[in-house]
């Protein structure tokens, strides 16, 4: 055979393998409103950048007549490519091939590309669309999952790991996404759960649909398992591409800098925040007034909305924002919001992203359910994450900074590099009403008109303590600033922190309150 003929033979073999599960299965996939694995990869990566490996891998299962079955690529497509020129490793499970079920060779393809991404220090993107373990391969499938989980853990904090759920992802399979940094879901397509509706019905007698149990909205809103929610697959890919622009390739680098841009004119910082600490506003507008081009990329938008986390750029550089949201539950910290914030701070710290904290919270959410849900250990995660982080850390106190909330939100005491306060800031051990009632309990009780006395004492307390100057007098905050200078001050703080270098006591690892 000539070289030409042999090349022809290769192309023929490739064309067959690239068909995956064949026309019928592809039709079925399309009928479900889903793209095929190959279409997904091509839609996500830069044009002509995808290079596939292990296309000709075959399974070697013999039991249950598996030896007679040809499964192209063993149900998963793996390779490398670029997104806006940044290199990534990628795998996409192919639901058209045996339902994307995970057999031993399927798993080996995934772990091979994972090893590659860790070795090359580039982000890993995994597109999940699989019926689960390939039952015919028995414990070998389980072994495959275990080896994936292990690599997820090993790579955690070294390379960014992104999971995209574009189909079912059930049983043990969901633990790989859960171990990665960011999980993307799409409405009506993503389904994540440990035990499905049928098992729940037979064992427990509870009836629930797949969508209600572990659909995209549930994961984005209720459980917090997902970080990004999209209406369709193309929107999801746009979100992934955008995320890639905000994060570095690995933990040894910084995110790519972009040309600086001023925030858009419609966001006027001094008009957003009411001076009355009891009045709500959308803290995301404050962030938009601070970041380049007013472009704020929010993470976990729908989950625990009483805290806002996400990425933006200040003077072209990626910054992570953590901000109390007075619009929702008055911006309190609770179990979910603590969890959300702590994880995001740890992400930023692992990947050299400076953290900017915008503070305006009355404290922790009161309630039996919160106490019993472990708000102590969840709340402690925030303290841990801030204290542990060695990236540049800047806090702006917009209004309320009371009690435990003041300490938790990147206070000076947790090794913040810069703490600034607006003139509207109230830094105090608790809100004026509560404090006055405790301190002046006797005076109020014994007064002829207790209510008038109470009001007067609250007023006195407010004037004396509900301001930034008591904390400034102790040096707990570095400076009281005019609101309109906030962006300039942030730019400066980040600029002068570029070479920040702080030591940590030697340890294997800490014991965060997981």
């Amino acid at each position: 055979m000539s070289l030409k003929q042999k090349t022809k033979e290769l192309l023929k073999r490739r064309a067959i393998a690239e068909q995956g599960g064949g026309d019928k299965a592809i039709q079925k996939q399309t009928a479900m409103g889903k793209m095929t694995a190959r279409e997904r990869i091509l839609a996500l990566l830069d044009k002509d950048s995808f290079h596939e490996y292990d296309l000709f891998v075959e399974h070697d299962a013999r039991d249950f007549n598996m030896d007679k079955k040809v499964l192209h690529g063993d149900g998963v497509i793996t390779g490398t490519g670029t997104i806006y020129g940044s290199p990534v490793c990628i795998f996409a499970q192919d639901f058209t091939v045996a339902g994307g079920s995970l057999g031993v060779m399927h798993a080996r393809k995934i772990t091979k590309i994972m090893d590659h991404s860790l070795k090359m220090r580039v982000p890993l993107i995994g597109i999940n669309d699989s019926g689960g373990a390939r039952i015919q391969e028995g414990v070998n499938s389980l072994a495959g999952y275990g080896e994936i989980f292990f690599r997820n853990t090993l790579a955690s904090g070294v390379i960014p790991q992104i999971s995209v759920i574009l189909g079912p992802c059930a049983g043990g399979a969901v633990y790989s996404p859960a171990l990665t940094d960011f999980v993307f879901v799409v409405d009506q397509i993503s389904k994540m759960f440990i035990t499905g509706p049928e098992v729940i019905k037979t064992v427990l007698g509870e009836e629930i649909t797949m969508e209600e149990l572990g659909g995209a909205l549930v994961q984005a809103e209720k459980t917090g398992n997902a970080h990004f929610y999209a209406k369709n697959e193309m929107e999801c890919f746009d979100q992934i591409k955008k995320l890639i622009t905000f994060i570095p390739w690995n933990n040894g680098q910084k995110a790519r800098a972009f040309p600086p841009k001023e925030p858009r004119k419609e966001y006027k910082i001094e008009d957003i925040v009411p001076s009355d600490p009891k009045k709500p506003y959308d803290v995301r507008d404050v962030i938009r007034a601070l970041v380049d081009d007013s472009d704020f990329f929010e993470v976990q938008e729908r989950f625990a909305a009483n805290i806002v986390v996400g990425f933006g750029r200040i003077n072209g550089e990626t910054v992570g924002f953590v901000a109390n949201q007075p619009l929702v539950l008055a911006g309190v910290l609770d179990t979910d919001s603590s969890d959300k914030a702590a994880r995001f701070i740890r992400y930023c710290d692992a990947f050299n992203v400076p953290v900017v904290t915008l503070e305006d919270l009355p404290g922790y959410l009161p309630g039996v359910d919160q106490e019993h849900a472990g708000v102590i250990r969840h709340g402690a995660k925030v303290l841990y994450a801030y204290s542990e982080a060695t990236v540049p850390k800047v806090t702006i106190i917009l209004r309320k900074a009371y009690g435990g909330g003041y300490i938790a939100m990147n206070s000076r005491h947790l090794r913040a590099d810069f703490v600034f306060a607006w003139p509207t800031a109230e830094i105090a051990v608790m809100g004026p009403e509560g404090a006055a009632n405790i301190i002046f309990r006797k005076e109020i009780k014994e007064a002829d008109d207790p209510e008038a006395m109470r009001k007067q004492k609250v007023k006195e307390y407010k004037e004396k303590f509900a301001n930034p100057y008591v904390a400034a007098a102790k040096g707990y905050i570095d400076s009281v600033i005019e609101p309109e200078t906030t962006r300039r001050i942030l730019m400066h703080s980040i600029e002068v922190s570029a070479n920040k270098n702080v030591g940590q006591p030697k340890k294997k690892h800490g014991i965060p309150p997981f």
Partner: protein
Amino acid sequence: MEEKAKKPRFKSFIVDETVYKTYLTKKYHERRAYEPHNPKKLISFIPGTILKILVKEGQKVKKGDPLLILEAMKMENEILSERAFKVKKIHVKKGETVPKNTLMMEFE
């Protein structure tokens, strides 16, 4: 859809005696009010199937006497009496599947 079109109203929300104006979340609305433990009510701690009922209404039981067997997650859980009681009412039947937090028996 009509409900969505309406602009949600701010609610009053109290922390440390200060009243804040804010939105509340679905999760906050759905939270369950705390109920103190009532020893006179036998509540299922796990969803499952009533395999056997070992007492009758009106029967006196001692502390530690078996009351019923609740099968859940392939385990047969023998439910014992917390104190000495008289069985007032049995709310479940043999073979019945019960969700979590179901009232199964009452005592006096």
